[in-house]
């Protein structure tokens, strides 16, 4: 199955904005340490790309550059195809305001449109989409870790992003909650049609969600793999296992040109 076919059910419904990204010779250094050295990457509109690599390979730095949280030392990042070109970020931590209740936290995602009529309705819908409509009035402190990340997801989705950057948002969750969140994320992505960029160290997670897996090594792309498995993907299937093995094999033997 080709990439186009695999992505087709979502593409067909994609009247929602999505942006394509072009990254050209991106360089980023922290002090003497060059984290990204001339990285090139093209991401199609609406594509779900997973970026994996060992810790310190520069994957989180790359995400922060794309999200506009940091600026590259050299090179350029271009977005095309959407009106509101502010990428949304889902961080490793939920980063909810503890002094604002759940619904107010979701409304932050609306930005300046928070004061428009119908804003509360949209926030409630987003909260319902992650299954937390009944917790709207609660303090974030009363939620579990998984529920907090679901609120963070609702906050990111309520703004209808054209690009959603995810910085290992499921890393701190237990295995079961993590799988639930993955399917929630996949559903949201298929419904909304945004371009997704997921940084993770979990190969199975990348293989479950991504159209394309990019492996970073020493600040550059070491492996660029299209994933053509049909969705929703079955973790037990032989194709899934072969894909995981390919990536893990590449991660374990970091010799060049493998």
């Amino acid at each position, binding site marked *: 199955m080709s990439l186009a076919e695999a992505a087709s059910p979502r593409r067909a419904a994609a009247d929602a904005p999505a942006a394509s990204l072009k990254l050209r010779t991106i360089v980023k250094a922290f002090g003497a340490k060059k984290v990204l050295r001339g990285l090139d990457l093209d991401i199609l509109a609406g594509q779900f790309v997973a970026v994996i690599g060992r810790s310190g390979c520069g994957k989180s730095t790359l995400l922060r550059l794309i*999200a*506009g*949280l940091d600026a590259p030392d050299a090179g350029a990042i271009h977005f095309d195809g959407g009106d509101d070109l*502010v990428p*949304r*970020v889902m*961080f490793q*931590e939920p*980063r909810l*305001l*503890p*002094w*604002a209740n759940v619904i107010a936290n979701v409304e*932050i*995602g609306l*930005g*300046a449109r928070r004061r428009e009529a119908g804003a509360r309705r949209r926030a409630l819908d987003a909260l319902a989409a992650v299954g937390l409509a009944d917790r709207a009035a609660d*303090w*974030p*402190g009363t939620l579990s870790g998984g529920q907090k990340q679901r609120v963070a997801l609702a*906050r990111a989705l309520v*703004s209808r992003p054209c690009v959603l950057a995810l910085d290992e948002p499921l890393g701190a969750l237990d295995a079961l909650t993590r799988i639930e969140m993955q399917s929630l994320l996949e559903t949201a992505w298929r419904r909304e049609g945004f371009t997704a960029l997921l940084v993770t160290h979990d190969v199975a997670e990348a293989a479950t969600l991504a159209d394309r897996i990019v492996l970073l090594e020493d600040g550059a792309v070491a492996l660029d793999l299209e994933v053509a498995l049909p969705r929703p993907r079955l973790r037990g299937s032989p194709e899934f296992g072969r894909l995981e093995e390919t990536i893990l094999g590449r991660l374990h033997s970091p010799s060049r040109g493998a």
Partner: protein
Amino acid sequence: MADTATSLQRPLRTPRLALRFDLRRLLAPAIGWIAPALLVVVWQGSASLGWLPDSLLPSPLAVLAAGWRLTLSGELPRNVEVSFLRAFAGLVVGGAIGFGFGLANGLSRASDRLTDTTLQMARNIPHLALIPLVIVWFGIDEAAKLFLVALGVFFPIYANTLHGVRAVDLQLVEMAKSYGMRRLELFSRVILPGALPSIFVGLRYALGVMWLTLIVAETIAAQSGVGYMAMQAREFLQLDVVVLAIVIYALLGKLADVVVRALERACLAWRPLHGD
């Protein structure tokens, strides 16, 4: 057999537990008052038995009587009002300046470089050491008391506001910025609420300093107020009034604490600590 035993026990056990629980809830706030009440009883007892001469320490009843007498004459309410207004005015002026500098230095590097060293140096001077100078400057006017109280409450509010603003979670700030929050909104929705717990710590500390400063200032240089009333009474050997003044200060201090606690409960309701 075992079944009947448990089914018999169950309805018995529930009301007993409920009763004990209710009693505890009723008694819990009263527990803190046991020791003070006991002290008053022992105090009154030893005075009534003649162990405690009036010339050393008048009995609680005598103090109450003095309180009633001075209330009727209008002297007590007037002096309490004067003291309260001084304390409050000093807190508002000193607190506002401290809060302002704390915010400015927490938010702006330039402001911090410009003023923090000066403020930290001034902090090491005990403000009560300025009393002789303050009397020369302001006489024993209201301005003297206002100045001293304001100076006293300034530092705790300044230091804790500054600390609170600096300790705000930068991850939350980054999140808010990534969702397009700018200056004013970022301040009112993220920085100020984040700094608030620390500001309250400063406020509580400032209240202690406020009463202390006022007592000292009123006993040394004043023509009205609770402290002045106590000093006048000492001249005429009215120990009951002296003790009354001390009790009034204690009550005013407690009242201020209760108000701040209520404010904290209202403003920091999101903290699990303030759940009950």
